[in-house]
Protein backbone atom coordinates (compact mmCIF):
# COMPACT_ATOMS: atom_id res chain seq x y z
CA UNK A 1 0.00 0.00 0.00
CA UNK A 2 1.32 3.41 -0.83
CA UNK A 3 1.42 6.27 1.62
CA UNK A 4 -1.33 7.99 -0.32
CA UNK A 5 -3.60 4.95 -0.10
CA UNK A 6 -2.85 4.66 3.58
CA UNK A 7 -3.72 8.27 4.20
CA UNK A 8 -6.91 7.67 2.34
CA UNK A 9 -7.87 4.66 4.42
CA UNK A 10 -6.98 6.21 7.73
CA UNK A 11 -8.31 9.63 6.83
CA UNK A 12 -5.01 11.12 7.84
CA UNK A 13 -2.55 13.69 6.69
CA UNK A 14 0.82 12.02 7.05
CA UNK A 15 2.62 15.04 5.65
CA UNK A 16 1.28 17.09 8.54
CA UNK A 17 2.42 14.47 11.01
CA UNK A 18 5.88 14.40 9.59
CA UNK A 19 6.09 18.14 9.88
CA UNK A 20 5.32 17.95 13.57
CA UNK A 21 7.95 15.29 14.19
CA UNK A 22 10.85 17.63 14.62
CA UNK A 23 12.40 16.22 17.80
CA UNK A 24 16.06 15.49 17.39
CA UNK A 25 16.90 11.93 18.34
CA UNK A 26 18.89 12.50 21.50
CA UNK A 27 20.40 10.10 24.01
CA UNK A 28 18.16 7.39 25.44
CA UNK A 29 16.18 8.31 28.54
CA UNK A 30 14.94 4.77 29.10
CA UNK A 31 15.71 1.45 27.59
CA UNK A 32 14.16 -1.99 27.97
CA UNK A 33 16.68 -4.76 27.41
CA UNK A 34 15.39 -8.24 26.76
CA UNK A 35 12.48 -7.81 29.16
CA UNK A 36 10.40 -10.93 29.80
CA UNK A 37 7.50 -11.03 32.23
CA UNK A 38 5.61 -13.80 34.00
CA UNK A 39 2.46 -13.94 36.10
CA UNK A 40 2.90 -17.13 38.09
CA UNK A 41 3.79 -19.81 35.54
CA UNK A 42 2.37 -17.91 32.58
CA UNK A 43 4.82 -15.98 30.44
CA UNK A 44 3.12 -12.87 29.11
CA UNK A 45 6.02 -10.96 27.54
CA UNK A 46 9.15 -12.21 25.86
CA UNK A 47 12.38 -10.47 24.98
CA UNK A 48 11.18 -6.89 24.62
CA UNK A 49 13.92 -4.46 23.50
CA UNK A 50 12.91 -0.83 23.09
CA UNK A 51 14.87 2.40 23.35
CA UNK A 52 13.02 5.54 24.44
CA UNK A 53 14.97 8.65 23.37
CA UNK A 54 14.85 11.74 25.61
CA UNK A 55 11.93 14.14 25.11
CA UNK A 56 10.10 12.05 22.55
CA UNK A 57 6.73 10.35 22.52
CA UNK A 58 6.67 6.60 21.98
CA UNK A 59 3.37 4.84 21.33
CA UNK A 60 2.87 1.20 22.28
CA UNK A 61 0.16 -0.32 20.10
CA UNK A 62 -1.25 -3.79 19.70
CA UNK A 63 -4.43 -5.81 20.26
CA UNK A 64 -5.88 -6.32 23.75
CA UNK A 65 -4.03 -8.84 25.89
CA UNK A 66 -0.69 -8.51 24.11
CA UNK A 67 1.10 -7.22 27.21
CA UNK A 68 1.39 -3.46 26.49
CA UNK A 69 -0.03 -2.44 29.85
CA UNK A 70 2.05 -5.07 31.59
CA UNK A 71 5.14 -3.78 29.85
CA UNK A 72 4.51 -0.13 30.70
CA UNK A 73 4.09 -1.10 34.35
CA UNK A 74 7.53 -2.70 34.38
CA UNK A 75 8.99 0.71 33.52
CA UNK A 76 8.20 2.29 36.90
CA UNK A 77 8.23 -0.88 39.01
CA UNK A 78 4.49 -1.03 39.53
CA UNK A 79 4.60 -4.49 37.97
CA UNK A 80 6.15 -6.05 41.07
CA UNK A 81 3.13 -5.11 43.20
CA UNK A 82 1.00 -7.76 41.50
CA UNK A 83 1.17 -11.05 43.42
CA UNK A 84 2.96 -13.72 41.39
CA UNK A 85 4.68 -11.25 39.10
CA UNK A 86 8.20 -12.04 37.83
CA UNK A 87 10.61 -10.35 35.44
CA UNK A 88 13.80 -11.05 33.53
CA UNK A 89 16.04 -8.65 31.62
CA UNK A 90 16.71 -5.09 32.62
CA UNK A 91 15.11 -1.68 32.39
CA UNK A 92 17.61 1.16 32.15
CA UNK A 93 16.76 4.66 33.26
CA UNK A 94 19.51 7.21 32.63
CA UNK A 95 21.81 4.29 32.00
CA UNK A 96 21.17 2.49 35.31
CA UNK A 97 19.06 -0.61 35.88
CA UNK A 98 15.98 0.36 37.89
CA UNK A 99 15.72 -3.22 39.13
CA UNK A 100 19.16 -3.04 40.73
CA UNK A 101 19.01 -4.19 44.36
CA UNK A 102 20.26 -0.81 45.56
CA UNK A 103 17.48 1.13 43.82
CA UNK A 104 14.50 2.33 45.86
CA UNK A 105 11.33 1.80 43.81
CA UNK A 106 9.77 4.86 45.47
CA UNK A 107 12.46 7.15 44.02
CA UNK A 108 12.01 5.53 40.60
CA UNK A 109 8.26 6.16 40.64
CA UNK A 110 8.89 9.73 41.67
CA UNK A 111 10.93 10.35 38.49
CA UNK A 112 8.84 8.15 36.22
CA UNK A 113 5.24 9.30 36.60
CA UNK A 114 2.18 7.47 35.39
CA UNK A 115 -1.34 8.22 34.20
CA UNK A 116 -3.80 5.34 34.19
CA UNK A 117 -6.61 4.17 31.97
CA UNK A 118 -9.30 5.14 34.46
CA UNK A 119 -9.02 8.59 36.03
CA UNK A 120 -8.16 8.02 39.71
CA UNK A 121 -8.20 11.34 41.55
CA UNK A 122 -8.13 10.91 45.32
CA UNK A 123 -11.77 11.32 46.40
CA UNK A 124 -10.87 12.58 49.87
CA UNK A 125 -9.01 15.59 48.47
CA UNK A 126 -9.94 18.82 46.75
CA UNK A 127 -8.86 19.67 43.20
CA UNK A 128 -5.94 21.66 44.56
CA UNK A 129 -5.18 18.93 47.09
CA UNK A 130 -5.03 16.37 44.29
CA UNK A 131 -2.56 18.42 42.27
CA UNK A 132 -0.32 18.80 45.30
CA UNK A 133 -0.87 15.25 46.58
CA UNK A 134 2.26 13.95 44.89
CA UNK A 135 4.38 16.42 46.83
CA UNK A 136 2.76 15.39 50.11
CA UNK A 137 2.83 11.68 49.38
CA UNK A 138 6.45 11.63 48.28
CA UNK A 139 7.63 14.13 50.86
CA UNK A 140 9.05 16.31 48.09
CA UNK A 141 9.68 19.93 48.99
CA UNK A 142 8.71 22.59 46.44
CA UNK A 143 7.89 26.22 47.14
CA UNK A 144 5.07 28.35 45.78
CA UNK A 145 2.31 25.79 45.78
CA UNK A 146 -0.07 28.26 44.15
CA UNK A 147 2.26 28.57 41.16
CA UNK A 148 2.65 24.80 40.89
CA UNK A 149 -1.13 24.36 40.87
CA UNK A 150 -1.56 26.94 38.14
CA UNK A 151 1.38 25.74 36.04
CA UNK A 152 0.49 22.06 36.08
CA UNK A 153 -3.23 22.58 35.58
CA UNK A 154 -2.43 24.89 32.67
CA UNK A 155 -0.09 22.29 31.20
CA UNK A 156 -2.81 19.69 31.52
CA UNK A 157 -5.30 22.04 29.84
CA UNK A 158 -7.60 22.23 32.84
CA UNK A 159 -6.75 25.55 34.49
CA UNK A 160 -9.44 27.67 32.87
CA UNK A 161 -12.18 25.23 33.77
CA UNK A 162 -11.31 24.88 37.45
CA UNK A 163 -9.44 28.02 38.50
CA UNK A 164 -12.48 29.34 40.38
CA UNK A 165 -13.23 26.14 42.26
CA UNK A 166 -9.90 24.69 43.31
CA UNK A 167 -11.40 23.96 46.72
CA UNK A 168 -14.12 21.69 45.35
CA UNK A 169 -14.02 17.93 45.65
CA UNK A 170 -12.15 16.29 42.78
CA UNK A 171 -15.01 13.83 42.38
CA UNK A 172 -17.28 16.65 41.15
CA UNK A 173 -15.32 16.95 37.89
CA UNK A 174 -16.34 15.12 34.72
CA UNK A 175 -14.37 12.08 33.57
CA UNK A 176 -12.33 14.06 31.05
CA UNK A 177 -11.55 16.75 33.58
CA UNK A 178 -10.56 14.14 36.16
CA UNK A 179 -8.15 12.60 33.68
CA UNK A 180 -6.53 15.98 33.00
CA UNK A 181 -6.42 16.54 36.77
CA UNK A 182 -4.44 13.34 37.31
CA UNK A 183 -2.08 14.40 34.52
CA UNK A 184 -1.53 17.67 36.38
CA UNK A 185 -1.02 15.65 39.55
CA UNK A 186 1.63 13.53 37.84
CA UNK A 187 3.38 16.66 36.53
CA UNK A 188 3.54 18.41 39.91
CA UNK A 189 6.36 16.14 41.07
CA UNK A 190 8.35 17.07 37.93
CA UNK A 191 8.91 13.58 36.51
CA UNK A 192 11.43 13.03 33.73
CA UNK A 193 9.33 10.34 32.14
CA UNK A 194 5.55 10.11 31.94
CA UNK A 195 3.92 6.74 31.33
CA UNK A 196 0.36 6.85 30.01
CA UNK A 197 -1.71 3.68 29.91
CA UNK A 198 -4.57 4.36 27.48
CA UNK A 199 -5.20 7.77 29.01
CA UNK A 200 -8.03 8.61 26.62
CA UNK A 201 -9.91 5.32 26.48
CA UNK A 202 -12.71 6.58 28.73
CA UNK A 203 -12.92 10.06 27.26
CA UNK A 204 -15.01 11.88 24.69
CA UNK A 205 -13.36 13.20 21.51
CA UNK A 206 -13.06 16.78 22.79
CA UNK A 207 -11.28 15.74 25.99
CA UNK A 208 -9.14 13.34 23.98
CA UNK A 209 -8.04 16.14 21.69
CA UNK A 210 -7.16 18.32 24.67
CA UNK A 211 -5.07 15.58 26.22
CA UNK A 212 -3.31 14.95 22.93
CA UNK A 213 -2.44 18.64 22.72
CA UNK A 214 -1.16 18.37 26.28
CA UNK A 215 1.01 15.39 25.32
CA UNK A 216 2.57 17.23 22.38
CA UNK A 217 3.22 20.22 24.57
CA UNK A 218 4.72 18.12 27.39
CA UNK A 219 7.04 16.23 25.09
CA UNK A 220 9.21 19.35 24.87
CA UNK A 221 10.15 18.74 28.50
CA UNK A 222 9.32 15.13 29.32
CA UNK A 223 9.83 11.72 27.75
CA UNK A 224 6.41 10.18 27.17
CA UNK A 225 5.48 6.55 26.66
CA UNK A 226 1.84 5.98 25.80
CA UNK A 227 -0.22 2.83 25.36
CA UNK A 228 -3.09 3.38 22.97
CA UNK A 229 -5.71 1.42 21.05
CA UNK A 230 -6.43 4.39 18.89
CA UNK A 231 -4.32 4.33 15.72
CA UNK A 232 -5.06 7.91 14.78
CA UNK A 233 -3.98 8.93 18.25
CA UNK A 234 -0.68 7.08 17.90
CA UNK A 235 -0.09 8.85 14.58
CA UNK A 236 -1.09 12.23 15.97
CA UNK A 237 0.99 12.23 19.13
CA UNK A 238 3.94 9.88 18.81
CA UNK A 239 7.39 10.08 17.27
CA UNK A 240 8.08 6.37 17.62
CA UNK A 241 5.81 3.36 17.69
CA UNK A 242 6.29 -0.19 18.90
CA UNK A 243 3.80 -2.82 17.77
CA UNK A 244 3.14 -5.57 20.33
CA UNK A 245 1.49 -8.86 19.47
CA UNK A 246 0.70 -12.05 21.35
CA UNK A 247 -0.02 -14.75 18.80
CA UNK A 248 -2.07 -17.72 19.90
CA UNK A 249 -0.63 -19.29 23.02
CA UNK A 250 2.68 -17.43 22.83
CA UNK A 251 3.79 -14.58 25.07
CA UNK A 252 3.54 -11.02 23.79
CA UNK A 253 6.53 -9.59 21.94
CA UNK A 254 7.42 -6.61 19.80
CA UNK A 255 6.76 -7.38 16.15
CA UNK A 256 8.04 -4.13 14.74
CA UNK A 257 9.17 -0.77 16.01
CA UNK A 258 10.50 2.44 14.57
CA UNK A 259 9.48 5.94 13.61
CA UNK A 260 5.71 6.32 13.73
CA UNK A 261 5.59 7.43 10.11
CA UNK A 262 7.40 4.24 9.08
CA UNK A 263 5.22 1.91 11.15
CA UNK A 264 2.03 3.41 9.80
CA UNK A 265 3.19 4.46 6.35
CA UNK A 266 5.60 1.76 5.37
CA UNK A 267 5.55 -1.21 7.75
CA UNK A 268 7.98 -4.02 7.02
CA UNK A 269 5.86 -6.78 8.54
CA UNK A 270 2.60 -8.02 7.05
CA UNK A 271 1.09 -8.35 10.56
CA UNK A 272 1.87 -4.71 11.34
CA UNK A 273 0.27 -3.63 8.09
CA UNK A 274 -2.82 -5.70 8.85
CA UNK A 275 -3.10 -4.35 12.38
CA UNK A 276 -2.62 -0.66 11.60
CA UNK A 277 -5.20 -1.01 8.87
CA UNK A 278 -7.67 -2.50 11.31
CA UNK A 279 -7.78 -5.96 9.74
CA UNK A 280 -7.48 -7.62 13.16
CA UNK A 281 -7.12 -6.81 16.84
Amino acid at each position, binding site marked *: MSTAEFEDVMDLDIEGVEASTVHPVGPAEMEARDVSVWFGQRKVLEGVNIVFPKKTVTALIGPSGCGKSTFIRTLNRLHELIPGAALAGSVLYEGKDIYDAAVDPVSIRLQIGMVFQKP*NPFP*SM*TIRGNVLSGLK*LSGMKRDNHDDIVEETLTAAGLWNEVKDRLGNAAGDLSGGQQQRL*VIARALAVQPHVLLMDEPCSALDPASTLKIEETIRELSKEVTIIIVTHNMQQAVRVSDYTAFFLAEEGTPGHVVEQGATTEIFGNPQEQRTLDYVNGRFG
Partner: protein
Amino acid sequence: MRPWRKKPTRFTASVTLAVVIPALIVAALYLTSDIPVPILLVVIYLPLQLIASGIAAWATKGTRGIADSVIIVNAIGASLFSVIVLVSVIGSLIVRGLRALSPHFLFQNSVYISPSTPLDYGGIGHSLVGTLLIVFIASLISVPIGIATAVYITEVRGRAVPYVRFFVQAMSGVPSVVAGLFILTIVVATGAFNQSAFAGGLAYAILMLPTVARTAEEVLKLVPDDLRTGALALGSTRARTVLRVVIPAARTGIITAVILGVARVIGETAPLLLAAGNNDQTVVNPFGSPISSVPTYIFNNVALPYPDAVTRAWGSALVLIILVAILFTLARVIGRGRVGR
Protein backbone atom coordinates in the same frame (compact mmCIF):
# COMPACT_ATOMS: atom_id res chain seq x y z
CA MET B 1 -46.56 13.80 35.26
CA ARG B 2 -45.55 10.19 35.72
CA PRO B 3 -47.11 8.24 32.86
CA TRP B 4 -45.61 4.96 34.14
CA ARG B 5 -47.71 5.33 37.29
CA LYS B 6 -50.98 5.08 35.30
CA LYS B 7 -52.77 1.80 35.92
CA PRO B 8 -55.93 0.45 34.32
CA THR B 9 -59.03 0.71 36.55
CA ARG B 10 -59.43 -3.06 36.57
CA PHE B 11 -55.96 -3.36 38.06
CA THR B 12 -56.63 -0.77 40.75
CA ALA B 13 -59.93 -2.41 41.61
CA SER B 14 -58.54 -5.92 41.94
CA VAL B 15 -55.56 -4.76 44.01
CA THR B 16 -57.88 -2.84 46.32
CA LEU B 17 -60.10 -5.90 46.74
CA ALA B 18 -57.06 -8.11 47.36
CA VAL B 19 -55.96 -5.80 50.14
CA VAL B 20 -59.36 -5.15 51.70
CA ILE B 21 -60.98 -8.62 51.72
CA PRO B 22 -58.33 -10.54 53.73
CA ALA B 23 -58.03 -7.63 56.16
CA LEU B 24 -61.81 -7.64 56.69
CA ILE B 25 -61.92 -11.42 57.24
CA VAL B 26 -59.11 -11.26 59.80
CA ALA B 27 -60.68 -8.27 61.54
CA ALA B 28 -63.97 -10.19 61.80
CA LEU B 29 -62.18 -13.26 63.19
CA TYR B 30 -60.33 -11.08 65.71
CA LEU B 31 -63.62 -9.63 66.99
CA THR B 32 -65.63 -12.83 67.06
CA SER B 33 -63.14 -15.50 68.13
CA ASP B 34 -60.31 -15.58 70.68
CA ILE B 35 -57.52 -16.82 68.44
CA PRO B 36 -54.24 -15.19 69.64
CA VAL B 37 -53.13 -12.28 67.44
CA PRO B 38 -49.75 -13.73 66.29
CA ILE B 39 -51.43 -16.95 65.11
CA LEU B 40 -54.16 -14.91 63.45
CA LEU B 41 -51.54 -12.92 61.53
CA VAL B 42 -49.18 -15.71 60.54
CA VAL B 43 -51.47 -18.73 60.09
CA ILE B 44 -54.58 -17.02 58.73
CA TYR B 45 -53.81 -13.55 57.41
CA LEU B 46 -50.56 -14.25 55.50
CA PRO B 47 -51.87 -17.27 53.49
CA LEU B 48 -55.15 -15.44 52.88
CA GLN B 49 -53.31 -12.38 51.63
CA LEU B 50 -51.09 -14.54 49.41
CA ILE B 51 -54.13 -16.22 47.83
CA ALA B 52 -55.99 -12.92 47.37
CA SER B 53 -52.96 -11.19 45.81
CA GLY B 54 -52.34 -14.25 43.66
CA ILE B 55 -55.88 -14.15 42.31
CA ALA B 56 -55.69 -10.41 41.73
CA ALA B 57 -52.37 -10.79 39.94
CA TRP B 58 -53.66 -13.68 37.85
CA ALA B 59 -56.73 -11.68 36.87
CA THR B 60 -54.72 -8.71 35.65
CA LYS B 61 -51.39 -10.12 34.48
CA GLY B 62 -52.03 -13.83 33.96
CA THR B 63 -49.99 -16.67 35.48
CA ARG B 64 -46.81 -14.61 35.19
CA GLY B 65 -48.21 -12.25 37.81
CA ILE B 66 -48.66 -14.90 40.50
CA ALA B 67 -44.96 -15.39 41.24
CA ASP B 68 -44.60 -11.62 41.32
CA SER B 69 -47.36 -11.20 43.86
CA VAL B 70 -46.04 -14.02 46.08
CA ILE B 71 -42.65 -12.33 46.29
CA ILE B 72 -44.08 -8.86 46.85
CA VAL B 73 -46.48 -9.97 49.58
CA ASN B 74 -43.77 -11.93 51.38
CA ALA B 75 -41.31 -9.05 51.12
CA ILE B 76 -43.83 -6.58 52.50
CA GLY B 77 -44.80 -9.07 55.20
CA ALA B 78 -41.20 -9.66 56.25
CA SER B 79 -40.34 -5.96 56.39
CA LEU B 80 -43.54 -5.20 58.33
CA PHE B 81 -42.57 -7.95 60.76
CA SER B 82 -39.16 -6.42 61.49
CA VAL B 83 -40.69 -2.97 61.85
CA ILE B 84 -43.29 -4.37 64.27
CA VAL B 85 -40.58 -6.04 66.37
CA LEU B 86 -38.60 -2.80 66.59
CA VAL B 87 -41.65 -0.67 67.32
CA SER B 88 -42.87 -3.02 70.03
CA VAL B 89 -39.48 -3.05 71.74
CA ILE B 90 -39.32 0.74 71.77
CA GLY B 91 -43.04 0.90 72.61
CA SER B 92 -42.69 -1.27 75.69
CA LEU B 93 -39.72 0.82 76.84
CA ILE B 94 -41.79 3.98 76.49
CA VAL B 95 -44.86 2.51 78.18
CA ARG B 96 -42.94 1.23 81.19
CA GLY B 97 -40.10 3.71 81.43
CA LEU B 98 -41.30 7.10 80.21
CA ARG B 99 -42.70 7.89 83.68
CA ALA B 100 -39.19 7.78 85.14
CA LEU B 101 -37.78 10.37 82.72
CA SER B 102 -37.21 13.88 84.02
CA PRO B 103 -34.31 16.31 84.05
CA HIS B 104 -33.18 15.16 87.48
CA PHE B 105 -33.29 11.54 86.28
CA LEU B 106 -30.62 12.36 83.71
CA PHE B 107 -28.38 14.49 85.87
CA GLN B 108 -28.59 13.31 89.47
CA ASN B 109 -26.86 10.28 90.92
CA SER B 110 -28.20 7.70 93.35
CA VAL B 111 -26.24 8.48 96.47
CA TYR B 112 -29.20 9.01 98.83
CA ILE B 113 -31.62 6.89 96.84
CA SER B 114 -32.97 3.56 98.01
CA PRO B 115 -35.08 1.26 95.82
CA SER B 116 -38.22 2.50 97.52
CA THR B 117 -37.51 6.20 96.95
CA PRO B 118 -40.24 7.74 94.77
CA LEU B 119 -39.46 8.77 91.20
CA ASP B 120 -39.29 12.42 92.22
CA TYR B 121 -35.72 11.95 93.44
CA GLY B 122 -32.47 10.54 92.14
CA GLY B 123 -31.31 9.59 88.69
CA ILE B 124 -28.84 7.77 86.50
CA GLY B 125 -26.44 10.63 85.82
CA HIS B 126 -23.65 8.60 87.41
CA SER B 127 -24.45 5.60 85.18
CA LEU B 128 -24.56 7.71 82.03
CA VAL B 129 -21.18 9.23 82.84
CA GLY B 130 -19.90 5.72 83.53
CA THR B 131 -21.19 4.24 80.28
CA LEU B 132 -19.81 7.14 78.23
CA LEU B 133 -16.44 6.95 79.96
CA ILE B 134 -16.17 3.18 79.57
CA VAL B 135 -17.23 3.21 75.90
CA PHE B 136 -14.80 6.08 75.25
CA ILE B 137 -11.91 4.17 76.82
CA ALA B 138 -12.87 1.01 74.94
CA SER B 139 -12.98 2.94 71.64
CA LEU B 140 -9.65 4.60 72.39
CA ILE B 141 -8.11 1.14 72.69
CA SER B 142 -10.00 -0.94 70.16
CA VAL B 143 -10.41 1.51 67.25
CA PRO B 144 -6.69 2.08 66.54
CA ILE B 145 -5.88 -1.60 67.05
CA GLY B 146 -8.88 -2.66 64.97
CA ILE B 147 -8.00 -0.35 62.09
CA ALA B 148 -4.34 -1.39 62.29
CA THR B 149 -5.42 -5.03 62.09
CA ALA B 150 -7.58 -4.28 59.06
CA VAL B 151 -4.68 -2.44 57.46
CA TYR B 152 -2.42 -5.41 58.09
CA ILE B 153 -4.92 -7.74 56.43
CA THR B 154 -5.81 -5.60 53.42
CA GLU B 155 -2.78 -3.37 52.83
CA VAL B 156 0.31 -5.04 54.26
CA ARG B 157 -0.92 -8.50 53.25
CA GLY B 158 1.78 -10.14 55.32
CA ARG B 159 2.26 -13.86 55.70
CA ALA B 160 0.32 -14.03 58.94
CA VAL B 161 -2.92 -12.79 57.34
CA PRO B 162 -4.78 -16.14 57.51
CA TYR B 163 -3.86 -16.56 61.17
CA VAL B 164 -4.75 -12.98 62.08
CA ARG B 165 -8.10 -13.39 60.31
CA PHE B 166 -8.72 -16.64 62.11
CA PHE B 167 -7.99 -15.15 65.52
CA VAL B 168 -10.11 -12.08 64.89
CA GLN B 169 -12.94 -14.33 63.84
CA ALA B 170 -12.48 -16.53 66.90
CA MET B 171 -12.37 -13.43 69.07
CA SER B 172 -15.76 -12.31 67.83
CA GLY B 173 -17.14 -15.50 69.34
CA VAL B 174 -15.85 -14.73 72.85
CA PRO B 175 -18.86 -14.55 75.21
CA SER B 176 -19.00 -11.17 76.90
CA VAL B 177 -18.90 -12.70 80.38
CA VAL B 178 -15.62 -14.38 79.48
CA ALA B 179 -14.14 -11.02 78.48
CA GLY B 180 -15.25 -9.69 81.88
CA LEU B 181 -13.77 -12.65 83.73
CA PHE B 182 -10.53 -12.32 81.81
CA ILE B 183 -10.07 -8.69 82.81
CA LEU B 184 -11.20 -9.48 86.36
CA THR B 185 -8.48 -12.13 86.65
CA ILE B 186 -5.56 -10.43 84.95
CA VAL B 187 -6.22 -6.79 85.79
CA VAL B 188 -8.38 -6.56 88.91
CA ALA B 189 -7.45 -9.71 90.87
CA THR B 190 -3.74 -9.12 90.33
CA GLY B 191 -4.11 -5.72 91.92
CA ALA B 192 -2.96 -3.84 88.82
CA PHE B 193 -6.13 -1.75 88.78
CA ASN B 194 -9.33 -1.56 90.81
CA GLN B 195 -12.67 -2.37 89.36
CA SER B 196 -12.95 0.84 87.38
CA ALA B 197 -13.90 2.51 84.12
CA PHE B 198 -10.49 1.55 82.79
CA ALA B 199 -10.91 -2.14 83.62
CA GLY B 200 -14.46 -2.06 82.21
CA GLY B 201 -13.14 -0.33 79.10
CA LEU B 202 -10.55 -3.08 78.65
CA ALA B 203 -13.29 -5.72 78.80
CA TYR B 204 -15.41 -3.76 76.31
CA ALA B 205 -12.36 -3.30 74.05
CA ILE B 206 -11.95 -7.08 73.80
CA LEU B 207 -15.53 -7.31 72.55
CA MET B 208 -15.32 -4.29 70.23
CA LEU B 209 -12.02 -5.17 68.61
CA PRO B 210 -13.18 -8.00 66.31
CA THR B 211 -16.21 -6.02 65.13
CA VAL B 212 -14.14 -2.93 64.35
CA ALA B 213 -11.37 -4.95 62.69
CA ARG B 214 -13.67 -7.02 60.49
CA THR B 215 -15.86 -4.13 59.41
CA ALA B 216 -12.84 -1.93 58.72
CA GLU B 217 -11.32 -4.79 56.71
CA GLU B 218 -14.45 -4.96 54.56
CA VAL B 219 -14.50 -1.22 53.88
CA LEU B 220 -10.77 -1.03 53.14
CA LYS B 221 -11.26 -3.82 50.60
CA LEU B 222 -13.83 -1.60 48.87
CA VAL B 223 -11.27 1.14 48.23
CA PRO B 224 -10.40 0.79 44.53
CA ASP B 225 -6.88 -0.47 43.80
CA ASP B 226 -6.61 2.40 41.30
CA LEU B 227 -6.14 4.79 44.20
CA ARG B 228 -3.36 2.70 45.73
CA THR B 229 -1.42 2.33 42.48
CA GLY B 230 -2.14 5.99 41.72
CA ALA B 231 -0.51 7.04 44.98
CA LEU B 232 2.40 4.62 44.57
CA ALA B 233 2.97 5.89 41.02
CA LEU B 234 3.39 9.37 42.48
CA GLY B 235 6.36 8.17 44.51
CA SER B 236 4.46 7.54 47.71
CA THR B 237 5.59 5.03 50.28
CA ARG B 238 3.14 2.33 51.32
CA ALA B 239 2.63 3.89 54.74
CA ARG B 240 1.78 7.29 53.28
CA THR B 241 -0.50 5.66 50.73
CA VAL B 242 -2.50 3.99 53.49
CA LEU B 243 -2.59 7.01 55.81
CA ARG B 244 -3.24 9.75 53.26
CA VAL B 245 -5.19 8.03 50.50
CA VAL B 246 -6.72 4.68 51.46
CA ILE B 247 -8.01 5.45 54.95
CA PRO B 248 -9.37 8.91 54.01
CA ALA B 249 -11.15 7.34 51.04
CA ALA B 250 -12.76 4.81 53.39
CA ARG B 251 -13.57 7.35 56.09
CA THR B 252 -17.34 6.92 56.09
CA GLY B 253 -17.01 3.16 56.21
CA ILE B 254 -14.51 3.31 59.03
CA ILE B 255 -16.88 5.49 61.04
CA THR B 256 -19.52 2.81 60.42
CA ALA B 257 -17.06 0.25 61.76
CA VAL B 258 -16.66 2.27 64.95
CA ILE B 259 -20.44 2.67 65.27
CA LEU B 260 -20.96 -1.07 64.90
CA GLY B 261 -18.27 -1.69 67.50
CA VAL B 262 -19.95 0.66 69.97
CA ALA B 263 -23.35 -0.85 69.20
CA ARG B 264 -21.88 -4.28 69.87
CA VAL B 265 -20.86 -3.42 73.43
CA ILE B 266 -22.93 -0.55 74.77
CA GLY B 267 -25.62 -2.78 76.27
CA GLU B 268 -23.28 -5.49 77.55
CA THR B 269 -23.83 -6.01 81.27
CA ALA B 270 -21.82 -9.02 82.38
CA PRO B 271 -18.31 -7.65 81.65
CA LEU B 272 -19.05 -4.48 83.59
CA LEU B 273 -20.53 -6.30 86.58
CA LEU B 274 -17.18 -8.07 86.85
CA ALA B 275 -14.68 -5.47 85.69
CA ALA B 276 -16.28 -2.12 86.51
CA GLY B 277 -18.36 -2.95 89.55
CA ASN B 278 -21.04 -0.65 90.87
CA ASN B 279 -21.26 2.71 92.56
CA ASP B 280 -23.99 5.14 93.54
CA GLN B 281 -21.59 8.09 93.33
CA THR B 282 -20.65 9.90 90.17
CA VAL B 283 -17.11 8.83 89.26
CA VAL B 284 -15.03 10.63 86.65
CA ASN B 285 -11.60 9.23 87.44
CA PRO B 286 -11.24 6.27 85.08
CA PHE B 287 -8.75 4.47 87.32
CA GLY B 288 -9.81 5.17 90.88
CA SER B 289 -12.86 3.26 91.94
CA PRO B 290 -15.75 1.08 90.85
CA ILE B 291 -18.11 2.91 88.53
CA SER B 292 -21.75 2.55 87.60
CA SER B 293 -23.00 2.13 84.05
CA VAL B 294 -26.44 2.09 82.48
CA PRO B 295 -26.59 -1.68 81.82
CA THR B 296 -25.48 -2.54 85.36
CA TYR B 297 -27.92 0.01 86.73
CA ILE B 298 -30.74 -1.68 84.81
CA PHE B 299 -29.54 -5.09 85.96
CA ASN B 300 -29.47 -4.02 89.60
CA ASN B 301 -32.91 -2.45 89.58
CA VAL B 302 -35.13 -4.35 87.19
CA ALA B 303 -35.66 -7.37 89.43
CA LEU B 304 -36.23 -5.50 92.69
CA PRO B 305 -39.63 -5.83 94.38
CA TYR B 306 -40.18 -2.05 94.28
CA PRO B 307 -42.28 -0.68 91.40
CA ASP B 308 -40.41 2.65 91.29
CA ALA B 309 -37.03 0.89 91.06
CA VAL B 310 -38.36 -1.22 88.17
CA THR B 311 -39.71 1.90 86.45
CA ARG B 312 -36.29 3.52 86.87
CA ALA B 313 -34.71 0.48 85.23
CA TRP B 314 -37.06 0.72 82.23
CA GLY B 315 -36.45 4.44 82.07
CA SER B 316 -32.70 3.78 81.95
CA ALA B 317 -33.19 1.31 79.11
CA LEU B 318 -35.08 3.99 77.21
CA VAL B 319 -32.28 6.49 77.89
CA LEU B 320 -29.72 3.92 76.69
CA ILE B 321 -31.56 3.49 73.38
CA ILE B 322 -31.83 7.27 72.94
CA LEU B 323 -28.12 7.61 73.78
CA VAL B 324 -27.25 5.05 71.09
CA ALA B 325 -29.43 6.92 68.58
CA ILE B 326 -27.70 10.21 69.44
CA LEU B 327 -24.22 8.69 69.17
CA PHE B 328 -25.02 7.14 65.78
CA THR B 329 -26.51 10.35 64.40
CA LEU B 330 -23.48 12.26 65.60
CA ALA B 331 -21.11 9.80 63.94
CA ARG B 332 -23.11 9.98 60.69
CA VAL B 333 -23.03 13.77 60.68
CA ILE B 334 -19.27 13.79 61.27
CA GLY B 335 -18.78 11.10 58.63
CA ARG B 336 -20.81 12.93 56.02
CA GLY B 337 -18.56 16.01 56.10
CA ARG B 338 -17.68 16.29 52.41
CA VAL B 339 -14.45 17.33 50.78
CA GLY B 340 -14.21 20.95 49.74
CA ARG B 341 -16.63 23.87 49.91
